[in-house]
């Protein structure tokens, strides 16, 4: 309860700062607009205003402050503008419409989920291999760690173009980037998890004369679940980033990335912000869903608290 109150206060402060920041950010555009409407503005020409400081403009033209929260193409849209745009494009529009955020969200989500499934599947398989084979551990693990330090996203445009040139397009190239990004967190977390049983537990199975497969199914795999879910949460967020970035370089026509790109081309800031918030909501939803699954599964296994 106390935490909720603190969180709400922090969020309220952020929103207040956001509203306040709109004033200096948008004042120049507003002044240009009202001047065209015939009002008298203090530095009279747009050229003089360009060199003036934003705060000076606000002080000298206090009458225009009310306008800054309702500009059509603001530099910084006010929170309610973003909320209205979100509502309009996500709820009011038909889902099949190209301007519906739900439609774009579905495109991004399907690439994210496909990539996430491929990435985690391969990641778990590789982790099992690494845990059971010393050669794989010694030769692959260092590279897996090094590859974490490489900005894989730089590869995105190339992957898409190369796949396009051999005839693969649509969902799969984006999914591959998502898979690539979600792959390594899963490998690293899963290896840690599969190694988490301590020597005593392994010895116990040894005294039972358990085979490696039995040891895997009855001890290692259950023990790795908390680690697996921790890395799955990282992986799904990474997969979403991958899908969004994957939509950028192709000039894709659908998806959150395409919305961002189109918004930045045409100066539609409200559209960029609403796409951003929709992506944030999607990420939060996916992570929360995994958290829910984690709690349920761990409870079934008798590990939940």
């Amino acid at each position, binding site marked *: 309860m*106390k935490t909720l109150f603190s969180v709400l206060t922090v969020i309220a402060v952020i929103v207040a700062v956001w509203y306040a920041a709109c004033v200096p950010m948008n004042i120049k555009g507003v002044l240009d607009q009202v001047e065209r409407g015939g009002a008298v503005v203090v530095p009279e020409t747009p050229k003089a205003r360009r060199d003036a400081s934003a705060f000076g403009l606000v002080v000298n033209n206090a009458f225009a402050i009310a306008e800054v929260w309702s500009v059509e193409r603001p530099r910084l849209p006010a929170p309610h503008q973003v909320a209205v745009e979100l509502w309009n494009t996500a709820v009011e529009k038909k889902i099949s419409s190209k301007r519906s955020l739900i439609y774009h969200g579905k495109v991004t989500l399907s690439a994210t989920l496909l990539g996430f499934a491929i990435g985690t599947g391969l990641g778990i398989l590789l982790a099992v291999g690494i845990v059971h084979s010393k*050669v794989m551990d010694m030769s692959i693990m260092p590279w897996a760690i090094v590859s974490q330090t*490489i900005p894989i996203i*730089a590869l995105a445009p190339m992957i898409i173009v*190369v796949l396009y*040139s051999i005839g693969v397009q649509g969902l799969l190239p984006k999914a591959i980037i998502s898979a690539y990004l979600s792959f390594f967190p899963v490998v690293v977390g899963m290896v840690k998890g599969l190694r988490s049983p301590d020597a005593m537990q392994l010895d116990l199975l040894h005294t039972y004369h358990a085979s490696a497969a039995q040891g895997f199914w009855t001890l290692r795999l259950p023990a790795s679940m908390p680690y697996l879910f921790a890395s799955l949460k990282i992986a799904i967020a990474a997969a979403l980033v991958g899908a969004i970035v994957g939509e950028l*370089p192709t000039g894709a026509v659908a998806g959150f990335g395409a919305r961002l790109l189109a918004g930045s081309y045409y100066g539609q800031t409200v559209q960029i912000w609403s796409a951003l918030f929709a992506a944030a909501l999607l990420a939060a939803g996916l992570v929360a869903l995994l958290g829910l699954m984690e709690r349920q599964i761990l409870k079934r296994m008798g590990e939940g608290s």
Partner: protein
Amino acid sequence: MVFGAVLIWGLGWWVNVQLAKGSFADHRGVQLLVPAIFGVTLVLIWELLVRGLEVPLVILPAPSVIALRFGSSLDLLWADFSQTILKGALGGYVIGCSAALGVAVLVDRSEFLRRGLLPVGNFVAALPIVGTAPILVMWFGFDWQSKAAVVVVMVFFPMLVNAVAGLRETSALQRDLMQTYAASYGQSFFKLRLPAALPFIFNGLKISTTLALIGAIVAEFFGSPTVGMGFRISTSVGQLALDMVWAEIVVAALAGSAFYGLMSLIEKQATFWHPSQRRGRN
């Protein structure tokens, strides 16, 4: 050639199996040698397969072609490197991490702020923050300042969450000890809490190195001057000059690993006392 590739794969794997099973498997040299052999094998197979199957340049250039391109355009690569990494990524990294550290110290002093900011920070750290790139490019122009701004936003929250968690790492017993010494806030901060937080802070710093490079490169997709790694990658892809793209990726990989390695090195020096840094078996 394809047969040669299979042969090399078998040979490399066999050598590694022998090394891993051998009696020197725990030796430091062997532990470096095995992944090195694996890496060299992969590059050789790549070279042989590309040549043997005559894969066109627009799909996958051979490593030798990439190396040639790398050697012949060092000037260009250096210009891109200094634009994207030295100015954009490093500038943003320094600003973002020091800002996050400062805020973490402030947050740590107030129970209320910590309760409120940490969930928000955790939430934001999981969001696709690269998405703010178009907005920041719009605000700060096309040059490196906007890239640095994207990097600041990207590294701020992971760093903040780690630093705040780290500053809470001391136990009540340790804090009580400081109290019995009548230590002031500053004394107990610099002598106890900051050192205790260092492993977490370095963890944040290491995560942030990768994020910084990603942010700086992706931000250039939204507009940049005619120099920079992201710019070069997207234009070279457009011209189907994939050898140039791969050369840039090599630069990015080297820069990323070096950056990360540097941070780990400083970490080793600064937190030599921490269990994870101690030598010996574990």
